[in-house]
């Protein structure tokens, strides 16, 4: 059989977001791979420098639907550092809980998607059913199942009442049990192992060279976790450890993620225990932010998320740069699929938990048939208007 060029995307059942991967295959073997991103650019970085700091908070939340809280957290931490505002302790614990809740919901979502990629529909259904527990908790705390709008500049928007705390403890106890069950399934179910062991292998050193982060690099035996490297919020005060695996394959990434769900349950419970009673949850925040530049990193569920913000002293940031974890993991994911089987592409690729809508942030849609620019960001329009 001659070598065949084989596309996955922009529309494909394995990818929930538009992205184009092009593979050259020889029979069932993948000999080359290339990726084309940029299908969902939404001009967020540029738009950020057109809006004030509070508006940007909402904009950043909408970079991604799954890690929305990680984005507001990283953004708020950056701006608070610039403005030198101290966040009340109770708010920090609440932020940390939201951060871990989001990790739980995202990892459960990932587990379902990964099972779906290898045709294990039952695990997919069960994982998503149990994910509803954390979704209910998120809804109870913030009023929303996604885009929680919990983090605000200087603190959090809603407090956690005693009644909520009880329900959270209850829900997390169930969830923790279920996660342990899934850890058991992942390491014992024969067909699951057949599809994950030795699939999508990248060594730890190579991961590090390629700048991979999050569960991908941790599943290859390296311990890069922003929560440990640059402790933020109150991660110094709770007991937890960086989960790593030496397996370097999809199974390793599964184990790390499921383990992190269990850890996240424990961290959240510790937050409830350590949280000071009552008190402020939101500090007063100035409208204008002093001149300066700052970077802020958080460990989003997919890996390290970094914001770089520069302020010119006005109420509008001069530049907001966002680098999402998926972009950092893409070079490693390409290495995962080359040399593997076609059948392993979806699961190997899914094992980095890709999120392309986060990765692309600026869009100018072109109407390909006519070559005309159809939609433009406001900034583009202004620019175009000036040029005429």
């Amino acid at each position, binding site marked *: 059989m001659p070598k065949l060029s084989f596309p996955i995307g922009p529309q494909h059942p394995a990818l929930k977001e538009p992205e184009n991967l092009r593979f050259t295959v020889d029979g069932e073997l993948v000999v080359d791979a290339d990726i084309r991103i*940029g299908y969902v650019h939404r001009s967020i970085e540029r738009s950020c420098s057109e809006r004030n700091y509070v508006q940007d908070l909402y904009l950043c939340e909408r970079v991604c639907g799954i890690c929305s809280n990680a984005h507001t957290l990283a953004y708020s931490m950056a701006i608070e550092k610039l403005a030198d505002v101290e966040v009340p302790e109770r708010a920090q614990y609440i932020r940390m809980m939201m951060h871990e809740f989001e990790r739980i919901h995202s990892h459960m979502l990932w587990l379902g998607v990964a099972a779906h990629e290898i045709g294990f529909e039952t695990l997919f259904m069960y994982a998503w059913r149990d994910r509803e527990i954390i979704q209910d908790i998120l809804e109870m705390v913030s009023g929303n199942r996604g885009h929680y709008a919990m983090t605000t500049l200087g603190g959090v928007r809603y407090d956690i009442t005693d009644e909520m705390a009880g329900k959270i403890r209850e829900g997390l106890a169930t969830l923790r049990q279920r996660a342990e069950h899934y850890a058991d399934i992942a390491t014992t179910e024969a067909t699951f192992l057949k599809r994950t062991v030795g699939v999508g292998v990248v060594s730890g050193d190579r991961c590090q060279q390629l700048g991979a982060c999050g569960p991908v690099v941790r599943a290859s035996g390296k311990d890069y976790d922003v929560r440990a490297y*640059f402790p933020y919020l109150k991660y110094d005060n709770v007991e937890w450890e960086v989960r790593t695996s030496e397996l370097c394959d999809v199974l390793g990434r599964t184990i790390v993620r499921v383990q992190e769900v269990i850890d996240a349950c424990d961290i959240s419970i510790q937050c409830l225990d350590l949280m000071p009673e009552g008190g402020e949850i939101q500090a007063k925040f100035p409208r204008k932010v002093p001149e300066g530049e700052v970077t802020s990193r958080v460990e989003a569920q997919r890996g*390290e998320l970094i914001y770089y913000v520069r302020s010119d002293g006005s109420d509008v940031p001069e*530049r907001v740069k966002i680098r999402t974890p998926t972009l*950092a993991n893409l*070079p490693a994911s390409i290495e995962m699929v080359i040399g593997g089987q076609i059948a392993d592409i979806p699961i190997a690729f899914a094992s980095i938990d890709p999120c392309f809508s986060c990765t692309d942030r600026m869009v*100018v849609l072109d109407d390909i048939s006519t070559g005309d620019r159809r939609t433009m960001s406001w900034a583009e329009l202004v620019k175009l208007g000036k040029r005429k």
Partner: protein
Amino acid sequence: MTASELVEQIQSEYEGELTEAEARSDVDAWVGVPPADVQQMARYIMETWAPVHLSTISGVDNGREIEVLYHFATEGVSLNLRAAVPKGDDRIDTITPIVPAAILYEREIMDMFGVEIVGHPDPRRLILPEDWPEGDYPLRRDDVLEEEEGEEDNA
């Protein structure tokens, strides 16, 4: 290691020109080099504190020049390296051969700011569509410069 120790080490060991070297907190180190020296500095960083994680490369158009910022992370220190590329001669050497992680970030810089990354192994577009007009860079703010010049003319 703290940021100030790292900055001191750079100042004493690194044999090249530094445009800035400052520890702004315990974890934030800011270092600047002329654009021509970026490979030398990247090599020095990668060899001195290995393993070093390159978090990303940011670009900032400040009107006169395009600042290319390399955000590195080592154990406990966030090391930010700045190289300001003057507009008109917007070229900078690639660091991909030294830091493989830079490959996509450099393509993003090329797409968004039109800075030519000299020697990049794969200088195709990353984010912009194929039929995007040449010479039009979304995050480049040439209009700011034009405005300022215009104001000066009026004055």
